[in-house]
C-alpha cells in the first residue's frame, strides 16, 4: 500500500470514529497528504525504505506542530501564537518516514490521570465509551487503543503514558529521564517530565523509540549519550534475565483483577522473587509535592491573571501547590536522591521489576472516587500510586497490556528497568507479546 493510500485510510477511520472517541483536537490532513505523496514519489525514484515508511502518527497537543498553537489541553493557550516549527521528536519521526496526522486531546496542562477535559470534552475509552481513557495523554491512549493511528506520542510526568496504556490496552514506553528530547513541548514539572511513544505492538514502539533517540541542545535534560538502538535485539528473549516482582506498597489497594494480571505476567516471565522498594509511599508523596509546587511555579502568572479560565480541578490543585512551604519541597528533592540510591541497590540483584500500572481497570467517566483496598479515596490523586514512585527517579518503563480470559477490559503491567536499560524492558515486552500474554485488543466497533 502506498503511503498516500495508508494516510487516506487513516483519515477516513478518524472521520468515522473520532466523533465518538474524541481523541483528536486537530487533524493535519493536508500536511499528511503532502508528506505521504513526497514519500511515495521518492520511493518510486529508488529511495530505500525508511524504518517507519508511511506510518501515520499523532501527538499529544502539548507537543509543537508548526502552524498550530500548542494547547496543552488548556483554554488559556489558545491565545498563544502558532508554533513556528515542529518539536524535535516530530522531526525525527518524520525523518524516519512517519506521517503526522494530527494533535491529540489531553488533560489540562498534563495535571491529570483521567483523560477528561472541561474545554475539549473527555477522550473516551476505545473498549467502553462510557469509561475513561486515562490521562493525561488520554487522546493518545484513545487514538492508538481505538486503532485510529498505530503510533502516538505522549508525555509522562507521574504516569501519563502508563495510565492510558493500562486503561486503553496498548503498549507505552516511558524512557529514562533525559533519554528523549522534550524540545518543543509545553512543560509541566521540568524535573519529572518525559516524552515517549504509544503503539499497538512492541516492534512499532521500539522502531519509534529508535528513531527519536539522540542528543538535543534544545532540552537541557536531554542526554548526550549515543543512541542505544533496540530494534535488532527485540527477539533475544529473556534467558539470563533476573526479574523480580514488586510487593508491599505495589500490591496494596489493587483490585483482584489487577493482581491476577500481574501474577500472570510474572509467571509467564518466570519471575518468582518478591521485592519491595524502600519507602515507596514516601517516594510517591515526594513526587506529589514536587509536582504540585513546580507546577504552581510554572503557572503562577496564569493563576494571577486567568484563574477563571483554568479547569477548576487543575487550578485548585495548583493554587494549593503554590502555598506549600519551600522547606518541605526542598526536603522532597533531597529525599529523591536518597530513594534513587536505594532503588539502584535493588537493581544490583535484578534486571527488571514488575508492578501494576494502575490499581484498577478504566473507571467510569465522571467518577470521582476510587475504592482502594476497601477505602474510598479521591480518584484523580490516586490512579497513579504505582507509577509515581517509578518516574520519580526517572526509571525506564514499558507498560504492557494484558486482558485475562473472561475479562472485558485490559490493564497494564509496568516492566521497569534500571536507568538507560530500555532495551531489556522492551525485550521482555516482546517476549510477552510473542507468547500471547500481552497484546493490544482490537476495539469493538459497530
Amino acid at each position, binding site marked *: 500500500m502506498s503511503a498516500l493510500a495508508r494516510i487516506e485510510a487513516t483519515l477516513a477511520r478518524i472521520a468515522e470514529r473520532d466523533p465518538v472517541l474524541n481523541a483528536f483536537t486537530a487533524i493535519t490532513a493536508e500536511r499528511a497528504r503532502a508528506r505521504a505523496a513526497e514519500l511515495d514519489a521518492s520511493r518510486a525514484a529508488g529511495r530505500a525504505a525508511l524504518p517507519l515508511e508511511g506510518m501515520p502518527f499523532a501527538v499529544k497537543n502539548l507537543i509543537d506542530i508548526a502552524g498550530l498553537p500548542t494547547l496543552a489541553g488548556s483554554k488559556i493557550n489558545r491565545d498563544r501564537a502558532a508554533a513556528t516549527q515542529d518539536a524535535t521528536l516530530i522531526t525525527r519521526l518524520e525523518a524516519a518516514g512517519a506521517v503526522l496526522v494530527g494533535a491529540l486531546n489531553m488533560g489540562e496542562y498534563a495535571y491529570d490521570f483521567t483523560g477528561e477535559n472541561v474545554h475539549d470534552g473527555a477522550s473516551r475509552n476505545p473498549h467502553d465509551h462510557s469509561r475513561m481513557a486515562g490521562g493525561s495523554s488520554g487522546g493518545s491512549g484513545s487514538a492508538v487503543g481505538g486503532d485510529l493511528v498505530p503510533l502516538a506520542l505522549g508525555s509522562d510526568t507521574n504516569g501519563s503514558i502508563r495510565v492510558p496504556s493500562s486503561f486503553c490496552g496498548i503498549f507505552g514506553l516511558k524512557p529514562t529521564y533525559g533519554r528523549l528530547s522534550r524540545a518543543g513541548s509545553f512543560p509541566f514539572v521540568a524535573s519529572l517530565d518525559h516524552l515517549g511513544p504509544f503503539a499497538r505492538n512492541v516492534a512499532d514502539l521500539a522502531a519509534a523509540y529508535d528513531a527519536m533517540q539522540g542528543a538535543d541542545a534544545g532540552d537541557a535534560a536531554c542526554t548526550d549519550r549515543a543512541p542505544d538502538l533496540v530494534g535488532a535485539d527485540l527477539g533475544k528473549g529473556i534467558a539470563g534475565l533476573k526479574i523480580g516482582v514488586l510487593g508491599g506498597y505495589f500490591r496494596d489497594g489493587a483490585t483482584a483483577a489487577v493482581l491476577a494480571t500481574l501474577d500472570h505476567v510474572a509467571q509467564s516471565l518466570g519471575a518468582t522473587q518478591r521485592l519491595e522498594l524502600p519507602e515507596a509511599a514516601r517516594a510517591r*508523596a515526594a513526587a506529589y509535592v514536587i509536582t504540585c509546587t513546580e507546577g504552581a511555579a510554572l503557572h503562577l502568572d496564569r493563576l494571577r491573571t486567568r484563574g477563571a479560565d483554568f479547569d477548576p480541578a487543575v487550578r*485548585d490543585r495548583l493554587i494549593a501547590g503554590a*502555598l506549600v512551604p519551600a522547606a518541605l*519541597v526542598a526536603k522532597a528533592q533531597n529525599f529523591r536522591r536518597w530513594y534513587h540510591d536505594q532503588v539502584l541497590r535493588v537493581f544490583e540483584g535484578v534486571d527488571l521489576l514488575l508492578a501494576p500500572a494502575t490499581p484498577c481497570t478504566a473507571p467510569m467517566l465522571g467518577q470521582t472516587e476510587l475504592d482502594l483496598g476497601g477505602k474510598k479515596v479521591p480518584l484523580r490523586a490516586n490512579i497513579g500510586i504505582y507509577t509515581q514512585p517509578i518516574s520519580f527517579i526517572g526509571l525506564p518503563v514499558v507498560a504492557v497490556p494484558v486482558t485475562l480470559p473472561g475479562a472485558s477490559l485490559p490493564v497494564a503491567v509496568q516492566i521497569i528497568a534500571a536507568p538507560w536499560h530500555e532495551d531489556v524492558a522492551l525485550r521482555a515486552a516482546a517476549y510477552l507479546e510473542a507468547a500471547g500474554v500481552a497484546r493490544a485488543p482490537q476495539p469493538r466497533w459497530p
Partner: protein
Amino acid sequence: MADDSLDQMIAAGTALLGIPVQPEWLPAIRANLEVSLTLAQLVDGFALPDEAEPTPVYVP
C-alpha cells in the same frame, strides 16, 4: 492541621502571591492543600542525613 489554620494560610498566601481567589474555589483549594501538606509531612517525617542533596539537572 486545623481548618482555621488552613483558611488563614490560604488567605495570607494567595494575598502575598497576588492570586485572586473566588469564594466558591476555597473548599477545593483547602481540600487540595490538606492533601499536599499531609503528603509533605510524610516526606518531612523521614530522617535524611545532612549530606542528602538534590539531583540538579542544570549543567554549566
